[in-house]
C-alpha cells in the first residue's frame, strides 16, 4: 500500500491559502459568541432563536471543535430526568458530589441540574441519539425501560445519562447553520474591545485574525458571550507526546479567553486551584487514555485482574470492601448517591466506588502481579457491551479507539486489555482545575456586555454544564442586546491590538513559539508546582516579566498558522501570571483547591473560607474576595433569573 509520502519534507512549500495580513473586515452583530464549542454553539442557538443577528467566531472548525469535538459519553448532572431519584437541590448541594467543602460554583451547577434534561431533549431534536431505541440493552440494570435512557455510575439514582455524544458537535453545528448563525471558522479572537478602549468598561466587540489567511477582523456587538474553555497547555509541553500534551483538552484550548478577558479587566476566581496529573504513566499522556484498560470514567465499572487473573478488589465511597460487581453501581443503604464528578479533585475520584487505594503498595508486597488487565470478558454481557461498544465508541477519541482496536483483532468477549495508568506523573506536572470568570446569576461578568459560559467560567466542567450554561448565557446576552445602546469602538484600541498581533510575522530572527511554551512550562513546574511559597512564586513572576521583555519580544512566525500558535503562547503566559497572582493572594493551604503552601500550611482556616477574586484595574492587579455563599437562595434566584 502506498503510504502517501510526506511530500514536503526538506523542501519549502508554498503556503496554500492567500495571505491577507492586516486587511480588515468589519462585522456587526447583536450578539457575538466567541468560541464555538458546546457552550458557544448553545449560546448562539438560544440568541438566534430570539430573532437576533448572531455571529459566532471559532478558532477551529465548528463541526468538531473544542473538548467535545471528538465525542463524549457521559451526560453528567442530570437529576431532572424522569427516572432520577434525586432532586436538583440534592445534586447541587451534596457534600460528596459537587459541593466540595463549599468551594463549588453553585449557580452554574444548579442551572445545569435544573436544565440539563431539557437541554438533552433539545439535542435529541437536533438529531443526536440519546436513548437505546434499538433495545440493544433491554433488561440491563442501567436502563430505564420506560424512557429507554441508559445510565452510568449510580444505577439506583440515575442522574448521569450515557449518550451517543460523537453526534453532539455535528448536531449543534447544523442547528447553528439552520438558525442562520453567521459562523467565522479558523478565526482566532485575539482581544475584547471595550467602550472608549478602557479597561473595565462595557465590552463592545472583539478583534480576530484568520489562521489561514492572516486577515484581520473587527467584530462589533451589543453583547458578547465568551466561551473559549479552560487553558490546557500550562505546566507541561512536549511535541513528542500527542496533542501538545493537553491532558485531555484539544490544543486549541489555550486560554485565549482567559487572557483577553483579563486584559479587558474581567474578574476571575479559583485560579489558584490546580491538580497534579493523575495519569502521567498511561499510554501517552492524555489523548490516549481510553485506548488502554481502566476501571475509571468511560471504563467504569470494569473489573481489573492481575497477570495471573486475580481480581483487584473494589471499595465503596467510604472505603469498605465491596465484593460484587453490582455494588460498584449501587450505593449501600444509607449512603449518598454518587457519580464521577469531573471537577472532583479532593474527594472527586473517591466520590465513586473504586479499586483499593493501596494497590501500588500491595503490588510491591507481591500480592498482585504486573501487568494488570481490564477483564471485559469477566463482565456481565450488557456491561461489557456498554463499556466497549457504547462508551468506548462515543467518548472523545474513542470512535477511533474502537475502530483501531477491533481492526487489530481485539475482541472484548475474549480479550484482556492491558492497564497502563499506574505510573504517577513527574513532580510539577499540574493542570489548571477550572479557574475562570466570576459571574452573577445571569452568567454576566463584572463587565457590562460580557457574558460567559462553559469552562470559561470558574469551576465549570462537563458537557451538560457547558450546554446548559451556554443556553442560559445566550438568552441573557440576547436580552441585554435588545435593550443596549449601539456599540461604539475605539479606533485607537483596534490599532494597538492590530500592531501587537502582527509583530511576530514582521520579525525574522528570534525564538519560535515552541521554545517559549516549553520555557513557560518549566517556570510553572519550578515556581508554581506541587508546593508553593511566597519566594518561589515571586521568582516565577519575575521570570515571566523578564521573559516578556527579552525572549517573548523576539517571537517569530512564518505563516498564519504559526501566528495563531504564537499568539496562543502569549495568552498562555498571561494565564500563568494570573495563576501565580491568585496563588500569592491565598495565604493558606486548601485541600479542596488542591492548593499547598509550604509557608502557610494550615488547611482551610476559617478566615480563608472565601473565594479570592482578582482583576486588572489600570493595569494593576486588584485582589478582592467573595463569600462562598454569594449565590444566595437557590430556587428563588433561579426562578427570578430564568424568566
Amino acid at each position, binding site marked *: 500500500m502506498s503510504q502517501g509520502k510526506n511530500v514536503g519534507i526538506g523542501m519549502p512549500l508554498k503556503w*496554500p491559502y492567500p495571505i491577507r495580513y492586516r486587511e480588515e473586515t468589519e462585522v456587526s452583530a447583536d450578539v457575538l459568541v466567541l468560541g464555538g464549542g458546546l457552550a458557544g454553539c448553545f449560546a448562539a442557538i438560544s440568541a438566534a432563536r430570539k430573532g437576533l443577528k448572531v455571529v459566532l467566531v471559532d478558532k477551529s472548525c465548528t463541526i468538531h471543535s473544542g473538548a467535545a469535538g471528538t465525542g463524549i459519553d457521559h451526560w453528567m448532572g442530570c437529576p431532572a430526568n424522569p427516572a432520577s431519584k434525586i432532586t436538583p437541590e440534592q445534586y447541587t448541594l451534596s457534600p460528596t458530589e459537587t459541593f466540595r467543602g463549599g468551594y463549588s460554583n453553585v449557580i452554574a451547577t444548579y442551572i445545569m441540574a435544573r436544565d440539563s434534561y431539557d437541554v438533552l431533549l433539545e439535542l435529541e431534536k437536533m438529531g443526536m441519539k440519546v436513548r437505546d431505541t434499538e433495545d440493544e440493552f433491554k433488561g440491563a440494570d442501567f436502563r430505564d425501560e420506560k424512557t429507554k435512557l441508559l445510565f452510568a455510575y449510580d444505577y439506583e439514582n440515575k442522574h448521569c445519562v450515557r449518550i451517543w455524544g460523537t453526534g453532539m458537535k455535528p448536531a449543534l453545528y447544523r442547528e447553528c447553520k439552520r438558525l442562520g448563525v453567521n459562523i467565522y471558522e479558523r478565526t482566532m479572537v485575539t482581544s475584547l474591545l471595550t467602550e472608549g478602549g478602557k479597561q473595565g468598561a462595557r465590552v463592545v466587540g472583539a478583534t480576530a485574525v484568520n489562521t489561514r489567511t492572516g486577515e484581520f477582523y473587527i467584530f462589533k456587538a451589543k453583547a458578547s458571550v465568551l466561551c473559549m474553555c479552560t487553558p490546557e497547555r500550562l505546566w507541561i509541553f512536549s511535541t513528542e507526546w500527542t496533542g*501538545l500534551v493537553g491532558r485531555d483538552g484539544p490544543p486549541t484550548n489555550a486560554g485565549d479567553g482567559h487572557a483577553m478577558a483579563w486584559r479587558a479587566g474581567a474578574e476571575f476566581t479559583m485560579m489558584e486551584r490546580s491538580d497534579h496529573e493523575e495519569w502521567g504513566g498511561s499510554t501517552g499522556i492524555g489523548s490516549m487514555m481510553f485506548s488502554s484498560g481502566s476501571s475509571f470514567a468511560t471504563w467504569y465499572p470494569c473489573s481489573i485482574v492481575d497477570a495471573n487473573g486475580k481480581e483487584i478488589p473494589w471499595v465503596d465511597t467510604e472505603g469498605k470492601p465491596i465484593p460484587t460487581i453490582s455494588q460498584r453501581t449501587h450505593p449501600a443503604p444509607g449512603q449518598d448517591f454518587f457519580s464521577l464528578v469531573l471537577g472532583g479533585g479532593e474527594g472527586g475520584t473517591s466520590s465513586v466506588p473504586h479499586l483499593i487505594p493501596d494497590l501500588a503498595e500491595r503490588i510491591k508486597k507481591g500480592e498482585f502481579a504486573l501487568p494488570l488487565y481490564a477483564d471485559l470478558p469477566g463482565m456481565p454481557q450488557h456491561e461489557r457491551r456498554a463499556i466497549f461498544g457504547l462508551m468506548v465508541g462515543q467518548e472523545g477519541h474513542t470512535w477511533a479507539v474502537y475502530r483501531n482496536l477491533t481492526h487489530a483483532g481485539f475482541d472484548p468477549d*475474549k480479550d484482556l486489555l492491558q492497564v497502563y495508568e499506574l505510573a504517577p506523573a513527574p513532580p510539577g506536572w499540574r493542570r489548571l482545575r477550572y479557574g475562570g470568570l466570576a459571574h452573577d446569576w445571569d452568567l454576566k461578568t463584572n463587565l457590562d456586555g460580557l457574558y460567559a459560559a462553559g469552562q470559561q467560567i470558574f469551576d465549570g466542567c462537563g458537557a451538560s454544564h457547558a450546554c446548559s450554561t451556554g443556553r442560559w448565557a445566550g438568552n441573557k446576552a440576547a436580552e441585554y442586546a435588545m435593550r443596549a445602546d449601539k456599540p461604539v469602538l475605539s479606533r485607537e484600541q483596534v490599532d494597538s491590538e492590530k500592531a501587537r498581533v502582527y509583530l511576530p510575522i514582521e520579525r525574522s530572527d528570534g525564538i519560535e513559539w515552541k521554545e517559549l511554551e516549553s520555557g513557560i512550562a518549566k517556570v510553572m513546574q519550578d515556581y508554581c508546582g506541587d508546593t508553593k511559597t511566597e519566594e518561589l512564586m515571586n521568582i516565577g513572576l519575575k521570570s515571566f516579566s523578564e521573559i516578556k521583555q527579552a525572549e517573548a519580544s523576539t517571537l517569530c512566525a512564518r505563516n498564519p498558522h504559526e501566528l495563531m500558535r504564537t499568539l496562543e503562547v502569549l495568552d498562555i503566559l498571561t494565564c500563568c501570571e494570573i495563576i501565580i497572582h491568585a496563588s500569592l493572594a491565598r495565604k493558606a493551604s486548601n485541600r479542596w483547591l488542591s492548593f499547598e503552601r509550604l509557608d502557610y500550611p494550615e488547611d482551610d482556616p476559617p478566615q480563608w473560607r472565601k473565594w479570592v477574586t482578582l482583576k486588572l484595574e489600570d493595569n494593576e492587579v486588584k485582589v478582592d474576595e467573595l463569600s462562598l455563599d454569594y449565590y444566595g437562595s437557590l430556587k428563588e434566584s433561579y426562578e427570578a433569573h430564568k424568566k
Partner: protein
Amino acid sequence: MEKACVTPNLVTPNKPVIFDANVCNGCNRCVEVCMSDVFMPNPEKGKPPIILYPDECFYGGCCVKECPLHDKGAIRLNWPLMQRVRWKRKETGEHFRVGMLNPPPPNTRPPA
C-alpha cells in the same frame, strides 16, 4: 501582496494518519474538519493532503470519520509506537499488540 512559506516540521512521531494515495481522491474533506489544522491541501490536485503539523494532532480521528472513503482505507489513524497497546487472550494466554506482524483477524462487530 506579502508572501509566507513553510517547511513541514521534522518532529517525531510525525505520521498521525496514513493516507493511501491509491484510494484517496484528494477531496480535502479531512483538511476542512481537522480541529488542529494539521494538514494542507496537496498542491497537486487529486493527491492526499500533506501533513504539516503532526505534533499538533489530537488523535481524535475526526479526519478519518468524515472521510467519504475511510472504509476503503483512504486514511487511517496511526497511533505512535509508544501508544500501541497490548492485550492477552483470556482463555489461551496468547499476547497481542496493535501493530504486530501477523495480527489476529479483525473483529468486525460495529459499535452500539
